[in-house]
C-alpha cells in the first residue's frame, strides 16, 4: 500500500541578509535534502539535536512554511495521492483537516483569553462544521477522550496544570478527525511524572482513532517508547532511518551510536564509558565538506572529508548515509 506520507528531497533554506540593502549573503541550510515516508497507523520518531532541522521538516510537511524544494505527497482519504506543493489554497485547506499538530509548550500555545470550548471548538468553527450545540457536544466528547472533565469547558487555560493543558492541545488537534498528527516535542516541557501520562494517552488515541504520528523529539528514551520506526537527523540531513528495535540495538551511523551512548541512564550500576563527541554541531550556514559529521566522527576516513555519502538502503527499510555503514559494527543498547 502507498504510504500515507511520502517526503522526497525536501529542502528549506533561510536567507541570511546583511547590510543596509539587506542583500542575501548566504543561506542557512535548515533542511537539506530529506527523504522518508510514514505508513498509515504507525509512529515515526524524528530525532536530532537542536538546530538539526527536525522542527523545520515538520513545519514544511504541514505547509506552515513553504519548502525551498522537494515534494511532500499525501494519500488522501479517497486513496488518491496528492502532491501538496501543487495544491491551490482551497484544496490545501481541505487537506489540512487531515493533518494536525501538537505543540511543545502548552503554556504559550493556547490563547489565554479563550475558554476550552472556544479552543477545542475553533477548528470546527473554521471549517464550518456543525451548529453551536453540535460543536459543544463534540468538544465535550473530545475532552472526555483526552481525560478532562467536560464540565470544565467554560474555564480558561490558566486554571489547568501543564499536563492538563497538553491534553487540551491534543483535544484541539483531534477535533477534525485528522489522520496524520505531527507532534513537536509534546512532552519535553512537562514534569517527568506527567510525561508518562501524556505518552500513554498518545498511544491510546492512536489505537482508538488509527492515527499516524510524526513524533519530533530530542529525548531518545521517549522516542523509543512511542515509535515504530525512528529517523535521525544531523545538520539538516537524514543520517539513518530504521525500525526502532534495530536502530537502538545496532545503530549503523556513528552519530546515532554517539547519541544513544550519550543518554544518561537512570541506573548508577550502568555508569559506563560514554562516547564523548568532540567539538560542536556544525553550523548549517557553512557546513563542512563531504559528510557533515566527519569533523566529530571517530571513524572518519579521507573519503568522508571530500565526498557526501549517499542515502542508501543497506537492508530492507533501513537507510543510512555513511560511507562505512557496511563495514562498521557500532555499539547500541540492548
Amino acid at each position, binding site marked *: 500500500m502507498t504510504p500515507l506520507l511520502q517526503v522526497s528531497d525536501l529542502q528549506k533554506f533561510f536567507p541570511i541578509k546583511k547590510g543596509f540593502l539587506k542583500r542575501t549573503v548566504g543561506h542557512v541550510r535548515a533542511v537539506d535534502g530529506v527523504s522518508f515516508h510514514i505508513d498509515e497507523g504507525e*509512529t515515526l520518531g524524528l530525532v536530532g*539535536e*537542536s538546530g538539526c532541522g527536525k522542527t523545520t521538516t515538520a513545519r514544511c510537511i504541514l505547509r506552515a512554511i513553504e519548502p525551498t524544494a522537494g515534494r511532500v505527497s499525501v494519500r488522501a482519504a479517497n486513496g488518491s495521492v496528492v502532491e501538496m506543493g501543487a495544491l491551490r489554497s482551497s484544496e490545501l485547506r481541505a487537506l489540512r483537516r487531515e493533518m494536525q499538530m501538537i505543540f511543545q509548550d502548552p503554556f504559550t500555545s493556547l490563547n489565554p483569553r479563550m475558554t476550552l470550548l472556544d479552543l477545542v471548538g475553533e477548528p470546527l468553527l473554521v471549517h464550518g462544521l456543525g451548529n453551536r450545540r453540535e460543536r459543544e457536544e463534540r468538544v465535550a466528547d473530545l475532552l472526555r477522550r483526552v481525560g478532562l472533565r467536560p464540565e470544565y469547558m467554560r474555564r480558561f487555560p490558566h486554571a489547568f*496544570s*501543564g*499536563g*492538563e493543558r497538553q491534553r487540551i492541545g491534543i483535544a484541539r488537534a483531534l477535533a477534525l478527525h485528522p489522520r496524520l498528527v505531527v507532534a513537536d516535542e509534546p512532552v519535553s516541557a512537562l*514534569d*517527568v*511524572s*506527567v*510525561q*508518562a*501520562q501524556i*505518552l*500513554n494517552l498518545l*498511544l491510546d488515541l492512536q489505537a482508538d482513532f488509527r492515527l499516524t504520528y510524526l513524533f519530533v523529539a*530530542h*529525548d*531518545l*528514551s*521517549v522516542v*523509543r*517508547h*512511542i*515509535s*515504530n520506526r525512528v529517523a535521525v537527523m544531523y545538520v539538516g540531513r537524514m543520517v539513518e532511518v530504521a525500525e*526502532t*528495535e534495530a536502530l*537502538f540495538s545496532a545503530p549503523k551511523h556513528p552519530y546515532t551510536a*554517539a*547519541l*544513544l*551512548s*550519550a*543518554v*544518561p*541512564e*537512570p*541506573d*548508577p*550500576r*550502568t*555508569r559506563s564509558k*560514554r*562516547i*564523548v*563527541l568532540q567539538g*560542536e*554541531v556544525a553550523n548549517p550556514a557553512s557546513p563542512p565538506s563531504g559528510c557533515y559529521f566527519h569533523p566529530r566522527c571517530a571513524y572518519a576516513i579521507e573519503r568522508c572529508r571530500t565526498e557526501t555519502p549517499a542515502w542508501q538502503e543497506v537492508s530492507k527499510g533501513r537507510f543510512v548515509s555513511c560511507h562505512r555503514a557496511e563495514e562498521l559494527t557500532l555499539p547500541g*543498547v*540492548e
Partner: protein
Amino acid sequence: MNDAMTAPLLSVRNLKTYFTQDEGTVKAVDGVSFDMAPGATLGIVGESGCGKSITARSILRIVDRPGRIVEGEIHFRRPAANGRAERVIDLATLDANGAEMRGIRGAEIALIFQEPMSSFSPVHSVGNQIIEAILLHQPVSRAEARDKTIEILHRVGVSSPEQRVDQLANQLSGGLRQRAMIAMALSCRPTLLIADEPTTALDVTTQTQILELMRHLQQEDRMAIMLITHDLGVIAEMATDVAVMYLGRVVEQAPVDAIFHDPKHPYTRGLLRSIPRIRSKTRERLTPIAGAVPHPYDRPTGCPFHPRCPDFMPGTCDRKAPSLRPVGDNHAVSCFLYP
C-alpha cells in the same frame, strides 16, 4: 563523627524559606535537612515547584524578595585561610549583603545556572566577567587576573582561550557558554559548587561533555558538588548521594545505589517507574504517577504527596506530616509506611 575527616562540609537543618504575598504564603522550602561531605556529589532531584532551586538560593542567601528564610540553620565549614582557623558558621544568621557572606558567595560556594545565556551580561566580554570575579576575591593585579582567566578557560576545554576571553556571551555556542560559566564558578577554587540544572538547556552530546568536565574538575579540585536536576539519568551518572524533594520537603535521602535499587518512598518509586528508559521495550506503556503537582497556594494537608500516593492511608497521611526517619545505612525516608 566529629573529627575533621568526616565532619560535613555543609549541614542544612530544618530550613524553611517562605514567600509571603497577598494571595497567601508559598512554602517553597518547608523544613529541609541534609548533610554534605567534603568532595561528595549530592544530587537533589524533584519536579517543578519542589523547592530544589530555592534551597540552593537560600544557601547562597540570594533568595529574591518577598522570599525569606523564616527558620532553620545552614552550617557551612569555612576552610582555614589567611591565618584564620577552620570554623563552622551558620549562613542563615549572616547578613545576606554583609562582608562575610560576600566573601563566601562566589569564592567558597559557587553557583552554575541552568541558562548560561541569561546568566552572563550581554554587554561585557565573558573574560571581563570572570576577571571581575577573581579581582573581587583574590589579591591579584588585573593583568594577573586576565592570565588566570585564560588559564582556567583552557582548563575547562575552551579552545583558543586567548581569543575567546574577549568575546561576548552571544558569540559563544551553548556548550561553550556553559564551559565559561563553569570557568567563572571555579575561578576562586570553591569548596562547594552548586550546579542548578547545569545541562538542561544543552543537547545530549554536549551534556555528556559538560558532565565529563565537571567530574574531571571535581577530582582535581576535590570540591563538593550539589547537583540540582529533574533528570534521574544525570543523577545516576553523577551523584554519590541523592535527596528526593517534593513540595518543599526532602521525602527520601540515601546513597545513589539505594535510591535506584531500593527506593522506599512511594514518590521515589513512582518517579522511577514513570520515566521512559532507553533500555525498555519498544512501544511499552509507562506507569505514570496519578494527578499533577499541586498549585503552591493549594498545598495538601498532612503529607504533601498523599493525594497522588498509591499507599495513601486515610486518617494518617492527610492529618499528620511525616518526618525524615532513618531506615538503613545513611538512608532516611519521610513516610508513615516506615514508622
